[in-house]
């Protein structure tokens, strides 16, 4: 036992001799973990959105990007609302309202995020809701909401949300990313409720419309033109965009923005392992004479290896675990993936390097 402590103490002395290299390894591990963690999440979010919307994109969806013009006098022609509610009832459109809900009632839904979905095909954009094809008015609570039930007076209905959604329930928006519904209150309304909503909710519903052009009963060109003219009278210029074209393009842009961080970080990680490998070599070269003498005086190979392993452990595993654990503690979700990447790589490199070092020592001693 005393010998073991002696060996470990000697290993720590070796660490202090190569302090600069070990601090460099630690700092670089931290930098790599940080830069990957900051950037990978935007790419994975887009990739999840791309995967979520696969079924929706098969329906040739058209969504709108909006320009709000304050200089146009607003007349609020209701024909856009009529067109939207007929299309929703036919099942060739999906619409949702995720902001500006019941602005007059500040305590609506206990101030949780609310999502209103409408249309027969809501299963394309909202995932995890029980029987999504039905347009019966109803409401659900997100998986992480503490309330047992919430009363929701909206658009002439008095709904009570008491059923919790499964935790994988999520929602796809062409204007944002795929979003989890764990902290949302979800309300399903029939298309006819659209005309009873207030002005802000109607504006959001018009803006968030997705028309499905692959459906046999899809919106006619004349109706689409009328819809856009009517939206112009609400002070919005809605420009149709093809989701099947624009979403992969958005993904490409996100990748172009983040790849300059992710790939150089991974390259730096490989260089760090290279530095570690060279550190192991230096150690064997410097310590070989001493190890050989001790071997001649009866030390076993096992007891000699303890010192080397202590050194390698302190010079790679600790500098890798410390910064990634610190970052993961600060912001759990963001740095979990890069932490796992770094730790698995570290373990593999540590094992390989230890084995090769031990082999070199064994060969040169005997």
């Amino acid at each position, binding site marked *: 036992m005393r010998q073991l402590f002696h060996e470990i103490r000697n290993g720590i002395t070796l660490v202090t001799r190569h302090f600069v290299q070990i601090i460099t390894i630690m700092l670089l591990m931290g930098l790599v973990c940080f830069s990957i963690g900051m950037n990978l999440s935007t790419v994975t979010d887009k990739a999840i959105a791309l995967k979520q919307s696969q079924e929706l994109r098969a329906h040739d969806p058209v969504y709108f990007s909006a*320009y709000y013009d*304050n*200089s146009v006098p607003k007349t609020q022609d209701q024909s856009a609302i009529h067109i939207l509610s007929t299309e929703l009832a036919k099942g060739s459109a999906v619409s949702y309202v995720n902001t500006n809900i019941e602005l007059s009632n500040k305590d609506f839904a206990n101030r949780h995020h609310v999502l209103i979905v409408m249309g027969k095909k809501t299963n394309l954009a909202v995932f995890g809701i029980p029987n999504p094809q039905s347009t019966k008015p109803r409401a659900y609570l997100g998986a992480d909401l503490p309330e047992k039930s919430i009363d929701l007076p909206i658009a002439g209905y008095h709904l009570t949300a008491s059923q919790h959604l499964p935790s994988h329930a999520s929602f796809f928006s062409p204007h944002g990313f795929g979003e989890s519904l764990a902290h949302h209150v979800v309300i399903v309304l029939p298309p006819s409720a659209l005309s009873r909503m207030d002005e802000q909710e109607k504006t959001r519903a018009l803006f968030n419309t997705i028309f499905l052009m692959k459906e046999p009963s899809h919106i006619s060109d004349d109706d689409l033109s009328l819809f856009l003219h009517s939206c112009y009278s609400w002070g919005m*210029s809605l*420009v149709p965009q093809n989701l099947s074209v624009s979403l992969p393009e958005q993904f*490409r842009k996100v990748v172009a923005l983040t790849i*300059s961080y992710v790939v*150089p970080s991974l390259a730096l990680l490989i260089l*760090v392992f290279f530095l570690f490998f060279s550190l192991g070599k230096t150690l064997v070269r410097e310590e070989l004479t001493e190890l050989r003498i001790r071997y001649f005086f009866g030390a076993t190979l096992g007891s000699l290896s303890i010192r080397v392993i202590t050194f390698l452990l302190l010079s790679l595993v600790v500098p890798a675990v410390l910064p990634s654990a610190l970052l993961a503690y600060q912001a759990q979700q963001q740095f979990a993936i890069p932490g796992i990447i770094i730790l698995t790589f570290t373990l593999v490199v540590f094992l390989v390097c230890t084995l090769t070092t031990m082999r070199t020592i064994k060969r040169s001693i005997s």
Partner: protein
Amino acid sequence: MHRKLTASLSAFIFSLILAFLAFSVSQAVTDIHNQSLGIRGEYTRLSIPQMDNPSLERKQQQEKALIALQQYLAQEKIIFISATAEGEGSPSIITYDPQSTTWAQKVKPSQTYAIEGSYSQQLWEKKQKNPYLPPSISTINGVITPDASLQGEPYQFIHGLDGKLPPVGQAVISTQDPEKIQHIQELLTQATLHPQPLPRMTWKNVLIMHKEIDFTLLASLLSIVVCVMALNGVLEELIPEFVIHTYSGGTAFSIACKYSRHQFPAVIISCGAGTAFFLLINCVLQFAHINQFLLGLLLLSGLVSSIIVELMLFLIVFSQLHVAFAATRNK
């Protein structure tokens, strides 16, 4: 074998990081190029925020001031291009080109053109009414292809500068003369718009706006540090062999030269491989549009990285030999 591998590995990684530096620089250059919205030569950018619904009286005043602006631009031969930011105003671009040197030379004041490939073009071809035009504009004169920086955006039509549509968003004027800019700003202020000149692109601004350049630069500097540390450890092993060469009259300089020359093919091949690996990643993920400029930068980065790695090898061997000589002399 593995001694050659160490130099090649560091060359490969280093050239890969430099290739990403080249990519981020090329992206920044494209961004700066796109800011001019197609105006060649010197230009100034103005940001014009959207104003609230003007009264009828204000509207007449605005129309008057904008026509005065157009006359002033015609007199001084200044090109004016403005594009709305997403979410404000109408999906339009407003241009006036008295010099007839840009893509917008076809658009005369009060004329309106649909943008190639937009929904408005489809409507115009089917002779349907356009839902984006304000009531004061009734006809579309034709179709136009805008500058590359304005393509792929949801813009619908281009309007020649007159009083009917106020320029909102970002405007570019083809002058840097402070007096002329001042006069244009005054005219826009009379038109109840409040323009703010945007800062000119300096190196500092570029580095602040494009953080990926900062990061890749930092990564390449750090990788030099790590490479030097690692190669130092690996090459130390070779020193006893090198010292033998001194018995046949080799100096530290000649030995280091010989070693780096010996490593040269491996280094340049791995630098080429690093740059090729960048192109391979691009083939899979399709993130960069390969153009001549980017290819030139990549070639340059490959060459620079091989030179730096060679220099590192030379300096490490040279300094270690000096240390070894000093040690033997002391003995």
